[in-house]
């Protein structure tokens, strides 16, 4: 009897903690939605800011964020996947490879503002890309690289060894085995990792402060060397600078709401993809 009672208490406690977590999450969403939804309108989503950012829309920031995300992923996805494949499938299990692995994991723990400074020093100054989409995308790309590598590694390691053996036993070369027997079942896992890093890229402010973002720009970027507006930085700008704090605040919440919806829908997409693949793989 005592066992059952203590078990009940244990589970109730865990459930309580879960509720607290959900409460925070709900509060954030509710808070942002309540304050931001008022600002949302067709105009808000499709027009440029007007009247010293007190009215008009945030379309350039949405577009800018989109470009940055796209650039970062185009850069980091192939690189990350290739590294993961090498580390999992080809590399001999040696001391050096272990160090590389640990380094990659540590890279994931570096604060994002450090990546920003790195981007400033390397892409903006050294390569002379200036403050631009290119510099920002590369910086963001490097920032999420560890995340993409570990997600891909995990997905690859989760592929049963038996698939590889079956493929080799049929006379497949290592590369064909990876291409046809390992990557396909690993793909949902890899894509989930990528999509979740999209969410992270979209929301980061620090790496783009010095490398890509501008507070206000008339019109849309016309090349990868243009500086851009981006949603997170726009929020930061509206809340800390400018001359009309009250009106700006409302727009900032609108931006936050848009960003939140974007990130949530990307995560949702990740879940959908994973579920579909899981069903397909039985």
């Amino acid at each position: 009897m005592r066992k059952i009672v203590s078990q009940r208490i244990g589970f109730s406690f865990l459930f309580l903690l879960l509720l607290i977590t959900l409460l925070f999450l709900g509060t954030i969403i509710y808070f942002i939605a309540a304050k931001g939804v008022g600002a949302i309108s067709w105009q808000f989503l499709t027009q440029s800011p007007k009247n010293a950012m007190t009215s008009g829309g945030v379309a350039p920031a949405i577009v800018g964020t989109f470009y940055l995300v796209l650039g970062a992923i185009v850069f980091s996805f192939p690189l990350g996947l290739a590294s993961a494949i090498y580390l999992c499938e080809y590399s001999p299990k040696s001391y050096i490879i272990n160090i590389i692995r640990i380094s990659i994991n540590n890279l994931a723990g570096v604060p994002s503002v450090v990546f920003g400074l790195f981007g400033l020093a390397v892409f903006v100054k050294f390569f002379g890309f200036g403050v631009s989409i290119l510099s920002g995308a590369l910086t963001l790309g490097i920032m999420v690289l560890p995340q993409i590598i570990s997600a891909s590694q995990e997905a690859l390691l989760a592929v049963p060894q038996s698939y590889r053996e079956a493929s080799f036993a049929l006379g497949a070369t290592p590369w064909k085995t990876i291409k046809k027997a390992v990557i396909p079942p690993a793909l949902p896992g890899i894509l989930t990792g990528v999509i979740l890093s999209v969410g992270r890229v979209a929301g980061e402010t620090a790496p783009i402060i010095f490398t890509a973002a501008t507070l206000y720009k008339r019109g849309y970027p016309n090349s990868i060397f243009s500086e851009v507006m981006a949603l997170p930085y726009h929020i930061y700008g509206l809340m800390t600078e400018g001359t009309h704090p009250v009106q700006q605040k409302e727009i900032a919440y609108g931006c936050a709401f848009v960003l939140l919806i974007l990130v949530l829908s990307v995560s949702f997409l990740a879940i959908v993809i994973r579920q579909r693949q899981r069903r397909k793989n039985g």
Partner: protein
Amino acid sequence: MAENIRIEVKDVNFYYGKKSALQNVSMDIKKNKITAIIGPSGCGKSTLIRLFNRMNELIPNTRLEGRINLDGKNIYSSKIDVVEVRRRIGMVFQKPNPFPKSIFENVAYGLRVNGIKERKYIAAKVEKSLKNAAIWEEVKDRLSDNALGLSGGQQQRLCIARALAVEPEVLLMDEPCSALDPTSTRKIEELILDLKKKYTIVIVTHNMQQAARIADYTAFFMLGDLIEYDVTDKIFTRPSKKVTEDYITGRFG
């Protein structure tokens, strides 16, 4: 080399790191016969058959001494292409391991990775292989369904079809029925007996009755040594070694 020998094992020693897994093993595997390899766990049975298609190379830190000849040619010679060896020696594993692809694509896999693109040829070959593996009737109407939806026994026969599609000369089976129920096991055993006409079959099994039922020759291994290798009937009625007798009668250990 005698006409009827497909695989010759000559003075083979095999090591995982410093640990010896096989010692001085020499045996001839006869063409178009079923050879069963029995012995307690860790006796080197699986290690031996995985040497036949060079699968042990996938494990780092292993070392082989001696020769293994396929039709008189050393498969470990530097002139031999390992991919070719593996194509000629098919393998079926302990747990059915179809790819998470359609039934058709599973069987076509070996053809595709070997560079065959002609669709008609592939389709014909898939059908033939499925028929040879005695599973065609069960799957012909759902070739595009995912293979993982099949039952365990069907999956294993699919894996046999997959191995047959690349036209191997030898079929290695590593405890192919250990994960199957008795009915599926019977089906696979009947299939193996049918396949003997075209293929040389080497089967590792823990099930001694199975070895007795289907094998022409039986080899008994213990702790990496080949203890006794003879016609199956002799092994099971009058083994010449006391250890063999103790093992097959269950007195062992």
